[in-house]
């Protein structure tokens, strides 16, 4: 499978800050790739490098088969971008901005534009200075979604959208995906990531610390087990991958590394299971571990 984006050993420093520290990222053609990480971890910086706005200090950058710094214009003709904080010209209306951006990208599909305006319930006749934060964001989204670009770079595109519009956005991305286009979606909204993304990469302090499908990532975490057995709970402390164990007679509560779940369940069933509840890790737990875990390392 080919890659729409492939970054290896990417380094970008601002003065003494090392914003990107040997970052590797691979986004496959046709997938929706979640890009997650705490504030200031380097998501926006990565996207700016991809847009050819920043020059990498070291490492290789491949975007749609080219180098965005060297052949920027030709590559950018094939992508669409939504910044996390859409700033607009105060005296120009939202409709004008959408048209201008489409024309600068090479053409305006008026039907698609009008359709999106309706779906996102945006009044295109208002001057940008009178739009609310959410409505400004909608202008940016519609301007990007009216294009038929092969690659969408979205940097926290839904910040400020209300839940109804968030749902509409997710429908739009599903359609984009169905058309076989590629999306890089930086986001802090986990439900959005869970609903849309085929794969995710988690960035911390300018490095990718985890990358894979959500199922794969779940494997890296623990499942909570609460169990009651017929026979006494012998040998359970000897199992590998068991954490936070409390035993109360024939009742035990513990976390087990997902990789060792099978082993633990076999052992328990040998003791005769009276009742068992297992709680899979939530996405929150998954990310919170990555968000603050590495601080300690």
């Amino acid at each position, binding site marked *: 499978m080919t890659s729409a984006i492939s970054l290896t050993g990417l380094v970008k420093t601002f003065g003494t800050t090392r914003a990107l520290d040997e970052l590797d990222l691979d986004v496959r053609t046709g997938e929706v790739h979640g890009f997650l990480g705490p504030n200031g971890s380097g998501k926006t910086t990565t996207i700016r490098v991809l847009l050819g706005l920043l020059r990498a200090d070291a490492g290789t950058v491949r975007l749609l088969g080219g180098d965005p710094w060297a052949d920027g214009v030709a590559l*950018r003709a094939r992508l669409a971008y939504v*910044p996390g904080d859409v700033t607009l010209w105060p005296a*120009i209306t939202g409709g004008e901005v959408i048209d*201008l951006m489409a024309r*600068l*990208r090479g053409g305006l599909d008026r039907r698609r534009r009008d359709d999106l305006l309706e779906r996102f319930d945006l009044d295109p006749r208002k001057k940008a200075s009178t739009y609310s934060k959410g409505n400004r964001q909608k202008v940016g989204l519609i301007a990007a979604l009216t294009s038929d670009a092969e690659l969408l770079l979205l940097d926290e595109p839904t910040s400020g959208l209300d839940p109804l519009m968030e749902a509409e956005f997710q429908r739009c991305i599903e359609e984009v995906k169905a058309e076989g286009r590629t999306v890089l979606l930086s986001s802090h909204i986990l439900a959005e990531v869970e609903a849309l993304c085929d794969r995710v990469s988690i960035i911390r302090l300018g490095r990718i610390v985890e990358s894979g499908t959500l199922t794969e990532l779940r494997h890296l975490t623990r499942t909570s087990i609460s169990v009651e057995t017929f026979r006494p709970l012998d040998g359970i402390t000897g199992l590998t991958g068991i954490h936070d164990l409390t035993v109360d007679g024939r009742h035990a509560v513990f976390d087990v590394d997902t990789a060792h779940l099978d082993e633990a369940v076999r052992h328990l069933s040998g003791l005769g299971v009276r009742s068992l509840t297992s709680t899979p890790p939530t996405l929150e737990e998954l990310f919170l571990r990555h968000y603050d875990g590495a601080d300690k390392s």
Partner: protein
Amino acid sequence: MTTTAGAGILVRFMLRQERRGLPWWLIGSGLLVGYQSVGSQDLYGTPEALAKLRATMTGNAALLAMSGPERLLDTIGGEVVFEIFGFLAILVGLMNMFLVGRHTRTDEETGRGELIRSTRTGRHAPLVAALCVAGIADLAVAIVVFGAAAGTGLPVAGSVLLGAAAAGAGIAFAAMTAVAVQVFENPRSVYGAVGIAIGTAFVLRAAGDIGNPVWSWLSPIGWGQRTFPYAGDRWWPLVLPLAAGAVLVRVALILLDRRDFGDGLLPYRPGRATASWALRSPIGLGWRLQRGSIIGWTAGLLVLGIAYGSFADSVEEYVADNPEIAQYLPGGAAEVVNSYLALVILISALLAGASAVAGAMRARHEETSGRAEPVLATRVSRRAWLGGHVTVTLAGSAVAVAAAGLGHGLAYGIAISDPAQALRLAGVALVQLPAVWLLVAVAVLAIGWLPRAAASVAWTFVGYCAVVAMFADSFNLPDWSRQASPFVHLPQAPLDTVTAPPLLIMSALAAAVLTAGFAGLARRDFGY
């Protein structure tokens, strides 16, 4: 709870917010008066000089239109008022407009006002408080103007009256703003409407000073002038701004009761739903962003040119009467009219240059505000993006410079009955264009290579050129220190004969510097 509850607290709060900006308005008013007072006393300090000036001015309609009623020329203090009062009143009017507008309509628009209204403040409190703050500011203006006038040796009674007249104009414009704030839903429209009102007041008083004085009595600026400070000290016209202010504030409060918070009586006019044909390229965007200031500057320079040009014919006579003036004119007294035109056209070109540099710096502002980023995420290269802005700036500056020359030529041509002067002086002004373009090129060079310092670099260069052009002779600056100004190397038309080489070399230099600036932008990180 009364409708003005909490106004006292708001006044203190607003004054705190204004503590940075307000002093500058006051300093500006003081400098304007003090500077004019010292300068006038220097030039026309003797009764003979003043009498000669009166003789020159009598019947010069264009000059009266820019200044005031002739009667003021009876005394030296009156001469100061004659020259300065119109501009002082505009300055004070703008100060009042921004003070009242900012704390009422802008607050409502941004939602800050909602925060205030959610506390225990009455419905009228923000407007009343803003008007109080304007009143306090006007009182301060009166004191500063009095200080500047009396401090530079003008009679005390007249100085008190001059201060009061300036404050009176301020009060009238503050009250006008209070009404406009109720009518329009967004601050830009409020400022536009009040700006037009201030401009109309200036034009009405000009009409009154040239022709039928009745016109002046329709203008808050005219009311102030017709107190005749130092030239009769007439106090009763001060009643007019107070009465008008009271009526307008009453109207504003009635209108305020009839509208919803955040709304205006005239609803916000929606704009276009789709982009016009022209908004499709970086140049189209550059034009859209700069057209307002280009049109404004072109119109302003045309008017300024007309004002300067109308004076050209009488300048010969004037210089014969005031030989000291000749030292400020390049070429001295010999070719007086041509030296005068060369100087004022140079000043116009410098103003056009300043406006062009402001236009070029817009590109930098687009970059730092993040608005350029989505544009550069399309097929637009950095070169094309900057090129769009700069092309509009360069073309706009050419139009502005030509308009200034045209203005000079129109007025001078009418005075000497030679309509061909209009096109001649437009051409003469364009001789300065390559230097204007070099100013733009230096700004672009700085944007390319020293983005963070770009504004300081560009404006320092403009300031340097202005100092060299206007003060080099009177300050006796050494010759070498002027050489970096591009204007020095161009022929001072119409005084000098114009030859092509300096113009071509300067244009080529500007092109080279521009190219270097574009190259700098192409190789650096964008957005910082």
